[in-house]
């Protein structure tokens, strides 16, 4: 099977963007966008559609099995992990690849996702006291520990923008872990941060739910967190 990648590339210094198209012969059905990028970069003879040499395409990857979130990018306009996008899914022969749009571009498909980590600091996502395990909240603690910090949820969120007060679901998920584990007497500050940076900003479009590569049960976590921090239905 042959596919054409239309890759939005950029110059590291000037940041000027341009599209480079490359024909790619895919060896077998299970190949992913990540495999294709690896092979294109390993092939020194590869040329683009105009016969120009292709310099190494900058992209980030690590685990190649959708457990680390490194390779998030826009694939045919949809934010997803390159290691999770099998070429056979794409009926058409053109696949566009571009960097996520809500983060500053570093080079080609690499973006600077520092804002993810900054927002976690703003909310103060860390335990101030020893965790208090309760089997009732175990699922919430587990689910809240699963976020990859890939940034896909922010990309589709109608409410998130860098510098805004809404921290996004990537900050919410680890917060939910703490909500499920902090002793009740220690939750006040976290409740306030939750209301200010998550609850008040989230428009409940839940576009994040569908796009999350880890399939995290975001609405389940939200229901529980709102019950604790907003509606106070949980005995405190």
């Amino acid at each position: 099977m042959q596919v054409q990648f239309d890759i939005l590339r950029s110059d590291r210094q000037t940041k000027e963007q341009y599209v480079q198209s490359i024909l790619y012969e895919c060896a077998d059905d299970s190949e992913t966008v990540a495999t294709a990028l690896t092979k294109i970069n390993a092939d020194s003879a590869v040329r683009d559609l105009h016969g120009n040499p292709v310099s190494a395409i900058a992209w980030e990857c690590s685990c190649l099995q959708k457990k680390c979130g490194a390779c998030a990018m826009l694939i045919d306009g949809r934010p997803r992990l390159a290691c999770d996008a099998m070429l056979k899914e794409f009926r058409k022969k053109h696949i566009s690849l571009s960097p996520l749009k809500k983060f500053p571009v570093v080079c080609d498909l690499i973006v600077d996702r520092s804002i993810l980590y900054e927002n976690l600091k703003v909310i103060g996502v860390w335990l101030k006291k020893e965790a208090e395990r309760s089997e009732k909240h175990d699922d919430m603690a587990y689910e809240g520990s699963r976020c990859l910090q890939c940034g896909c949820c922010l990309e589709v969120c109608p409410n998130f923008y860098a510098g805004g007060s809404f921290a996004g679901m990537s900050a919410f998920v680890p917060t939910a872990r703490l909500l499920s584990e902090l002793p009740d007497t220690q939750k006040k500050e976290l409740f306030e941060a939750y209301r200010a940076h998550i609850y008040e900003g989230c428009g409940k479009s839940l576009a994040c739910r569908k796009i999350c590569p880890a399939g995290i049960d975001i609405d389940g976590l939200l229901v529980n967190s709102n019950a604790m921090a907003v509606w106070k239905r949980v005995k405190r």
Partner: protein
Amino acid sequence: MERINIIGAGLAGLSAAITLARGGVGCNLISLQHSERAQSVLAEGGINAALDTMGQQDTFWEHYKDTMTGGGQLADADAVYGLTKHAPDIVRWLTALGVPFHMEQGRLILRNFGGQKKKRTAYAKSSTGKMIVSALIDEARKYEAAGVIERYPHHEFIRLLVDGENGKKSCKGVRIRDTYSGELYDFSGMVILASGGMNGIFPGMTTGTVQNSGDVTATVFAQGVTLSNLEMLQYHPTTIGISGKRCLVTEAARGEGGRLYILRDGAPWYFMEEKYPELKNLMPRDVVSREMYFAARREDCGGQVYLDMTGLSDEIWKKKLSDLREELRRYLGIDPAKEPIPVEPGIHYFMGGIDVDVYHRTNIQNLYAAGECTSQYHGANRLGGNSMLGAIYGGKVAAEHIMSAAGAYFPKEMQKTGAAPAGNSDASERIAVMTDGKAPVLCTVSAEPLTEEASPDFIMRLSKILSDGLGIVRSGQRLQKALYDVQEVEAEAKNLREKNRTALAGAMLRSAMMRTESRGAHYREDYPEKDETLRKKLTASCQEGTVSLNFRQLCDEPEATANDCDLQ
């Protein structure tokens, strides 16, 4: 005290950073990518500790013995003693940090794992690594916000800054590169390497991550850091091929009741159960992989080994292995609850690496190492459930030794759980938080040859040679051929990284050549027996480009005291 520079932000690096921060010592946490991308998140089955919550009268001494036996008696006994003794404290600490280990009615549930006679492995489904990393990331963030831990993500290790002659070398700092801007920086101060295994030497053939390229180990080897046990590669028995890599099927699949079989004359033959009636499918990984290798090559057998999990209860699938089931459905299109899955051994762990002592010191002064980049706790074969333990404990020991050697104060509870040696640790005054160490210096060297990466072509050629020589079953003849091929490739190395990788590859092959016996993961068909005179650590060092190998005497095994054998 200057900030400590930690290379790598996986479990070993995080553990070292948090330990230093708790003691009031600042550090730079330097990594190619953020901790969420570290290989530690891929660890699945669990973490071992003799917590004895299952009513089996388990003790840390038994954990110690299982680790030593599983490792072919080649691990450092004094280090393993510390590791297993402090394992329960590590797991209690992780629980306090909120790791959602599986519990029932307030009791921590432990599962069976390979090479261990008692249930000893704490877990969270088969995503234990991800759960632990998430908790440590949050803990580290507390100190990042306070400025004690300074993170440098997207920064690549280039080289150590080393002073002094051979034998008296001292580490003065580290040169790193910001991969976003391309700028080089020199950081002064002590260094802890926590840079992971050498997957990049075997691209596409391991279960690990691609960012663990092996370049850090190759570079420091060329700079004079001694490595050891390089011939010891772990082939995990159950992996499946997915695009671009091997994907692990956790040992917990067998711990929870999965069975290995092959078709012999058309009927399933449960070869592990027949040959090893006590531990059956849960023999140490080296044994299982080797049995699979031989079974697959028998004329009366079908060639493909299967893992049968169809006998597992719905409850086990739901509560303990739901994530594994989903993964296998996706990658193989098979529901493992309904059909056996085809599995093959794949490279999973490097028992060999940077040689460290019981305090995680390398042969170079002021240079420490912890985690998979080191060689220490696992000897000739690592037990499942001991890797995360070794990484967390190792990072902690390195950090504590740095603090105690510097006379820094650290809190009582850490002294209790750490293996810190006597030092000025009872200093009554807590030292000031070190946030004002020397700032990194923008490095203006005109040429830094190590910034040029090895070419994919070169890496592939080298890995083909290595995998021919360092398979599950090895022979002097094949190793000789591989060594010859490496010399040929060496002549074509175009840059320093390629040269360093070749030197490392040569040292791996020569180590396997020199170990004329079979022990743990190292199996020689021309020397199929264990040779007790070779129960020694095989070290490799590189001086001025010349590699030398030596067998070194292991330390004496500690004797069990009455106290050690008591239940905790």
